[in-house]
């Protein structure tokens, strides 16, 4: 259908119009119009402030994301493969899953000082349990017959991982990646707000004190745009490549 291709564009236009209608209806300084926000994005961009803080936050995101995925996948696969290990560590996992993000952030700062490492550690501690749970489920759902085939034909560990296990874990990896990005960036802002002197969280804190809503929305728009671009340019092509056999 012709219209279907334009659905994403149409939905964004609808969102913007709804926003504009609300602005006209409420007529409040607390809700700037899309136009004002767009102008604010440009101003912050040209002053060099937005790129600076955005890139700092993105760098923190990349670091904590890679560490969490690596640790989470390793531990998750190990727990999924080993009943005994899982029975022992299951309680630990439940505890870590239920510690509020704010608590880990505060404790990391108190125990390890207001450092960059403490900030990253706090984010990682919040994310790793989620990755573990997702990958553990994926590992438990592995096809036993295919693993038997690999074993019978003497596949090496690496070969089994690459050709038998990882393709089956792909959907779980993607799901951990997507939910991970969303979760991590929310926690990073909190970490920055509480104990860093740069990054998006720190900036948002300043704007909050000045009640500068247009700037807050401008930063939000910039960040959401970057994450969406990552989804379209990296994650979706990756999906397509990995699932070409379907």
């Amino acid at each position, binding site marked *: 259908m012709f219209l279907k291709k334009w659905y994403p564009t149409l939905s964004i236009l609808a969102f913007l119009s709804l926003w504009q209608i609300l602005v006209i209806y409420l007529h409040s300084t607390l809700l700037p119009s899309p136009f004002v926000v767009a102008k604010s994005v440009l101003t912050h961009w040209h002053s060099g402030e937005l790129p600076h803080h955005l890139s700092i936050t993105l760098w923190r995101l990349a670091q904590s994301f890679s560490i969490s995925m690596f640790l989470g996948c390793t531990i998750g696969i190990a727990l999924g493969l080993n009943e005994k290990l899982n029975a022992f560590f299951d309680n630990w996992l439940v505890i870590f899953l239920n510690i509020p993000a704010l608590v880990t952030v505060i404790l990391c700062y108190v125990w390890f000082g207001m450092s960059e490492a403490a900030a990253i550690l706090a984010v990682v501690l919040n994310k790793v349990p989620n990755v573990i749970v997702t990958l553990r489920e994926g590992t438990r759902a592995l096809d036993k017959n295919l693993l038997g085939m690999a074993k019978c*034909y003497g596949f090496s560990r690496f070969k089994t991982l690459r050709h038998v296990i990882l393709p089956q874990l792909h959907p779980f990896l993607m799901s951990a990646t997507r939910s991970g990005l969303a979760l991590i960036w929310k926690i990073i802002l909190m970490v920055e707000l509480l104990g860093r002197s740069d990054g998006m969280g720190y900036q948002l804190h300043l704007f909050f004190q000045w009640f500068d809503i247009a700037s807050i929305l401008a930063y939000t728009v910039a960040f959401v745009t970057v994450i969406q671009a990552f989804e379209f340019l990296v994650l979706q092509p990756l999906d397509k490549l990995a699932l070409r*056999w379907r």
Partner: protein
Amino acid sequence: MTAVKIQIHEKIHHDAEIPTIENFSLTLNAGEFVCLVGQSGCGKTTLLNSIAGLDKNYSGEIQIGNQTQKSQIGYVFQQPCLLPWRTVRENIELVFANKNEILKVQIDFLLEFMNLTAYANAYPKQLSEGMKRRVSIIRAFAINPDLLLMDEPFVSLDTPMAREVRELLTQLWQKRPHTVLFVTHDLREAIALADRLIFLTARPMRVLEQVNVAIERNQRNAEFVEQFKRQLLEKHPQLQPLL
């Protein structure tokens, strides 16, 4: 060539009341073609899995070849067990431990023989059940195994194809003798293929009777198979429920 010594005192599944296999002992001579005949569900697949090392949860001992050199095992599972995310050719080539050792000519010949050349680069999802089955047979043949385990390998093939693959199996085996353990519930198939028939009891599985088929394979026509079957029943009436 590889001889196999199987001695299983007991194999019991964790949720079962009676053992699947009990006091089972069987020796396969090197290069021998042995058919296991028994009712479905009697524990034949469990036995093959134990031999292949996939199920180590039994009391007893299974010795394959000599200890010094690991025997290459080819296994045609009851399901095709292909990797859906790899093409037909990749699925076959993956069973070679080393990329340089892949027997391209052999694989091409087998693909051609099984009418699968056109599908070499297709993914399993695009194949019918019978085609997948043929790929899994090629995979087991391609590595030139020392021990070939086949678990009802011809069930989803149509009759002419089954006959051709059976002939190919005999040809390959005569060209390069290796030990074959072949599970079937089709006595005619067993008579046509085997050096020795092993009849099995229902659970717990034991050896009920052993019968040698001492006649050249090319003389085993349909008439011979029928006659052999009749004589078998006259000599061993206790086999009646199996047939």
